[in-house]
């Protein structure tokens, strides 16, 4: 699908982002290895597909190169890094978000336009922000 948003990994974060984008009128496709991951997508009118995203043939079959944004939120940091690099270097996707629990791996995203989402950094930022306000 031209100009669609592809979410890889239908965990809590992936499912939530998919629903938000869907409500905003985006064309959303959610991919996950396991079909039972999709139960989190109630009142979601986008598409879902079961498949292994680390297989390039699968990514080609969902026309990933035509998407305008890819959001990568599987529960494995290494898979996330790999998929982000595949999307950036092989499929030349302009907008890529990737969730990484291990902030050290963010170093691998240097010199790319891939945007890392780091729960660790967000928690630290939130704490510091709160402390500043109460002081």
């Amino acid at each position, binding site marked *: 699908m031209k100009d669609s948003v592809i979410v890889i990994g239908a965990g809590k974060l992936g499912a939530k982002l998919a629903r938000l984008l869907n409500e905003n009128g985006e064309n959303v496709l959610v991919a996950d290895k396991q079909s039972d991951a999709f139960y989190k997508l109630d009142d979601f009118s986008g598409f879902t597909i079961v498949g292994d995203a680390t297989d390039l043939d699968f990514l080609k079959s969902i026309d990933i190169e035509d998407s305008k944004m890819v959001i990568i939120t599987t529960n494995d940091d*290494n898979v996330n*890094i790999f998929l982000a*690099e*595949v999307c950036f*270097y092989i499929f030349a996707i302009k907008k890529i978000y990737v969730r990484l629990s291990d902030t*050290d791996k963010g170093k*691998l995203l*240097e010199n790319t336009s891939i945007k890392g989402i780091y729960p660790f950094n967000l928690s630290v930022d939130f704490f510091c922000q709160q402390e500043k306000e109460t002081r």
Partner: protein
Amino acid sequence: MTIVIANGGHEADYIIKMFNNKKNKIIVINSDEGMCSYLATSDKISVIHGNPTKKYDLSVANIDNADVFVALSSNDIDNYVACKMAKKIFKVKKTIAIVRNPKNVSVFKSLGIDAAISGTYLLAESIKSETTIESLIKTLSLEENKIILTEIVVKEKYAVANKTLAEIHFPSTANISCIYRNPNVIIPSGKTVIRPDDRLLIVTTPNRQEEIQEFIQEGK
């Protein structure tokens, strides 16, 4: 040479035994504790129990500027990330990953892994060369596969046998650069007769290689 061996079971063991000598320094990083204590019995190697895809564990292993990093786990993606960390953060010169899925050979290479090795891929390649290049003894590729040097032993039934080079109209896309006829080496001219048991050394480009073999064998 400093060689880092990340994960792996018997593969790791084999490579350590092969390279553990005065010339090399071997660093092992393995996420399996039992494997670590087993590998630590080899002399003079440093063994770190840790996850080779974690920056902290790699820094404990002290792999900065190592010459070669070999990732041997059974998970292709983990091997990819370990190699990338080694190269980008620790400036390791060459990274090699073992892959289970043969499709990952080309993917990993295009993403900057120096070598990706798949047993299945190698098996398929060797089956291919066993079946198509029947009597070919050796091929050597030069200049990153732009030039191929092929050695063919002439058999009695071959189309070119017992003819002069002028008679066979050898294709212009290749050149018989020399003929080895025990014990002599002949630099051929148009009058040279090709005989059974001659070894022809042929220079060609990769896309013409099969064509030339067919020509020698069948005269096509």
